[in-house]
């Protein structure tokens, strides 16, 4: 098989077995890899009613047909599971170099099932799987865990692991690979923790076969050139990292501030990408095979680490009212060590701050107090005191006090750093995201704010349903390849289809690729419907409270209008359930 490996490694932790299975070529053709393959495997193997933290849930690591081929940004991997935070099908995607090793080891997917009797780590070296006792790693942070696992396996291996948060089943616990990269969202760290799996080290020695090498090189070159010529990927991201967005989003009045109570953070410049560069920047960093290098190695509080990225800067900065970039960087380092999702952690703390100011909770936590943020991260990471409740995410935390309207989340997943009252299409993308409040399922900020590929009016609803569907479909396809979302700034569906065709030897047109994306999106939706996931909506605040100042002043999200059009375009009923003819058209 070309492009793909055609193999799946199934590891059963209960039985301590690892066996290699062949993957059906039709599944790979139709679901591509990565997110799509993960969704298909989860759909087939994990019943929708499965309790996410039970042995019946599975953790599915996937890569794509372009992984490790040298295609630009093709160093990523994806993890799919049923999320304990949202109850939805959930894939979380991470960079670094871990994904390259899975592919080099000869697999399109590694399915982890069952539960280990005691804390365990795995070493996958091509076809060999070793189960190692991880008792001495219990409670260790992700950096130390990585070091010890490498010492116990092979220094050339790459490690994905959980920290104390995942071990203790905190629902905002994530999986960290390569020390600083996170499969951040959805609490998949808790799923790994529930399986008593502390880490996976992977070392591969192979390389994927390419069907048409000359055609692939030409396609790759065009793609690299397109990325090199796009203003976002050639200048903004390499120079300032993702935090270049802080001032941009603040300028349009859509930087959520103090738990989305406001859209402008007066100290935005103090936490911007420009300030990061001046104050804490050490050097750029890049994931495997990435020409963009948006990563930042920084130094703060005597420690050197990676990040913070835009969403993290926002979560611990504007959302918590904090203007100290060094402390935000430290908060980021802490989360990486504990294995916590920075978006959900920051947003949950911001929710707690608002509840405190409103007198809903008795703890004294005020917006703007950076030290309080750092202390709360320690409590969440170690599940101590109020941290035990906060580690369950903002929705469960606020609901415990009867105040769930102050959780700025969708389907239980904390919203990221774009106030949809000032970016209307983003509101629709949040509401209809199959994994909850996520900006990456359909990054409408690209056209609505950055003008990529074209500028559209961010405050209007007209046309947004169709554009959201388009971006969700192409994003599902790109997540399945598995390439970085940022590649989309420079590449169009034709670029992706050409690289995929040349690598696999199977001709995909751009519309084939979009159709595959649509198929994946619908499969995820059907799983959620069967799992009885709540409907598509937004926090009440975003639908009823107008922004009070700035260039988005006076707006709420006009969701109803967009949602009706969206369902119609999708071929779903008025409750967001795919119609039979839609599923039939997509071969589902």
């Amino acid at each position, binding site marked *: 098989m070309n492009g793909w490996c055609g193999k799946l490694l199934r590891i059963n932790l209960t039985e301590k077995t690892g066996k290699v299975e062949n993957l059906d070529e039709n599944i790979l053709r139709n679901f591509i890899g990565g997110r799509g393959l993960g969704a298909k495997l989860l759909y087939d193997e994990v019943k929708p009613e499965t309790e996410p933290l039970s042995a019946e849930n599975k953790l599915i690591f996937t890569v794509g047909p372009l992984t490790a081929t040298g295609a630009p940004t093709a160093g990523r991997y994806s993890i799919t599971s049923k999320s304990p935070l949202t109850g939805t099908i959930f894939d979380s995607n991470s960079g670094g170099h871990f994904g390259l090793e899975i592919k080099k080891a000869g697999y399109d997917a590694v399915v982890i099932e069952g539960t280990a009797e005691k804390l365990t780590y795995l070493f996958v070296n091509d076809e060999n799987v070793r189960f190692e006792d991880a008792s001495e790693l219990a409670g260790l942070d992700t950096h130390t865990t990585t070091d010890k696992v490498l010492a116990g396996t092979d220094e050339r291996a790459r490690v994905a692991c959980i920290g104390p948060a995942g071990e203790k089943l905190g629902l905002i616990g994530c999986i960290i690979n390569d020390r600083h990269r996170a499969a951040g969202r959805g609490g998949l760290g808790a799923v790994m923790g529930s399986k008593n799996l502390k880490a996976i080290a992977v070392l591969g020695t192979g390389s994927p076969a390419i069907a048409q090498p000359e055609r692939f090189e030409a396609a790759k070159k065009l793609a690299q*050139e397109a990325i090199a010529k796009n*203003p976002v990927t050639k200048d903004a991201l390499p120079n300032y990292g993702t935090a270049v967005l802080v001032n941009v989003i603040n300028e349009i009045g859509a930087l959520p501030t103090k738990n989305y109570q406001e859209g402008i953070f007066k100290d935005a410049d103090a936490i911007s990408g420009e300030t990061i560069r001046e104050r804490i920047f050490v050097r750029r960093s890049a994931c495997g095979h990435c020409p963009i290098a948006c990563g930042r190695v920084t130094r703060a509080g005597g420690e050197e680490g990676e990040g913070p990225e835009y969403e993290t800067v926002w979560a611990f900065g504007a959302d918590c009212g904090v203007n100290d970039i060094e402390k935000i960087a430290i908060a980021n380092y802490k989360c990486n060590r504990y294995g916590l999702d920075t978006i959900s952690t920051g947003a949950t703390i911001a929710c707690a701050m608002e509840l405190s100011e409103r007198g809903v909770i008795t703890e004294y936590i005020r917006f703007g107090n950076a030290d309080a943020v750092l202390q709360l991260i320690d409590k969440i990471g170690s599940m101590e005191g109020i941290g035990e409740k906060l580690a369950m995410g903002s929705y469960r935390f606020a609901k415990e006090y009867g105040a769930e309207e102050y959780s700025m989340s969708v389907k239980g997943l904390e919203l990221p750093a774009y106030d949809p009252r000032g970016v209307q299409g983003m509101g629709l993308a949040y509401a209809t995201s199959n994994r909850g409040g996520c900006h990456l399922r359909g990054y409408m900020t690209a056209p609505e704010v950055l003008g990529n590929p074209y500028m559209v009016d961010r405050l209007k609803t007209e046309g947004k349903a169709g554009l959201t569907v388009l971006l969700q479909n192409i994003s599902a396809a790109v997540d399945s390849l598995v390439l970085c979302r940022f590649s989309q700034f420079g590449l169009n569906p034709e670029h992706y289809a050409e690289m995929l065709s040349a690598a696999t030897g199977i001709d995909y047109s751009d519309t084939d690729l979009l159709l595959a994306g649509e198929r994946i999106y619908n499969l995820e939706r059907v799983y959620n419907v069967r799992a009885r996931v709540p409907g598509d909506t937004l926090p009440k605040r975003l639908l009823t409270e107008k922004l009070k100042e700035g*260039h988005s002043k006076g707006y709420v999200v006009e969701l109803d209008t967009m949602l009706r059009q969206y369902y119609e375009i999708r071929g779903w009923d008025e409750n967001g359930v795919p119609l039979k003819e839609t599923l039939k058209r997509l071969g589902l």
Partner: protein
Amino acid sequence: MYLRISKSDLAGIPPKLTKEKVAGLIDHTELKPHVLTKKIHSLCDEAERYGFASICVNSGRVKEATEYIRAKDLDVLVCSVVGFPLGQMKIEAKAYETKLAVEDGAEEIDTVINVGKLRELSTAKGQEKETIRRFLLNDVGEVVKAADGKIVKVILETGFLTDEEIAEGCRISVEAGAHFVKTSTGFGPMGALPAHLKLMRETAGRKKGVKASGGVTNFLDMVRCIYACANDEELLNPVYFRIGTSSGINIVNTVSWLKYTDNWFIDEIPCRYCPSNFVSKLPEEIKDYYVAKCRNCQILTPAEIEERRKHHKL
């Protein structure tokens, strides 16, 4: 000149264009002062690969471009800017720069008109007016003569001009024998805007070319330009229409996005692409002109006026 572009106006244009045709309308441009030779070389390679109409460089870079093109046997035309970017050089200097660029192998010349003189023309009277007009005819005419039959495009720098001055600049350029009129240098206060392009086409006529330059960074920007000045089969041709841009590759790469959905097109408030919405960098007296035009806008609906009031920055 006010202009409203409906979504149906725009939606009809992309089906007429392939990526290859789009590329053939683009002058692939690199005019920054800090550009390196290797960039000029890659500009040539890219023009060959994508099929751009030409590469557009400063006159001092023409020779190394043509030598590289010859050495690599590329099928690429070289366009040289002249009197760039201010247009305030002596006429003889512009003519001499043109002569040298042509000797070095330039096939096309983009010359900057003496913008200040063009502005003076609009307020001058009698004999003085006639003298300035003759000066401007010479300013363009000497370049045309030195170009020795090569294509000459005249950059008006529309962001510094009123509608009346743009129209007069077009008339002078045509009368002096230029082949194209062109909006901007990319270093001025305003890029290519549909209202100006429409005016330029109406004044220069169908037998001359119009080149849109400055701020055209993706295919949708280009479609707006096409609507304004080249929206029929005869004009949608590199002889009558060009785009000058350093974002040529990005434009070609964004062509396909329009085919997946027509939701990119909406009936936008016309202020979004109106010159009066881009006045922040203009000299005061020009700014006043455009602000006055905005206040007397003839085409906004009451709902759009309300929207504009609500969001002074669109």
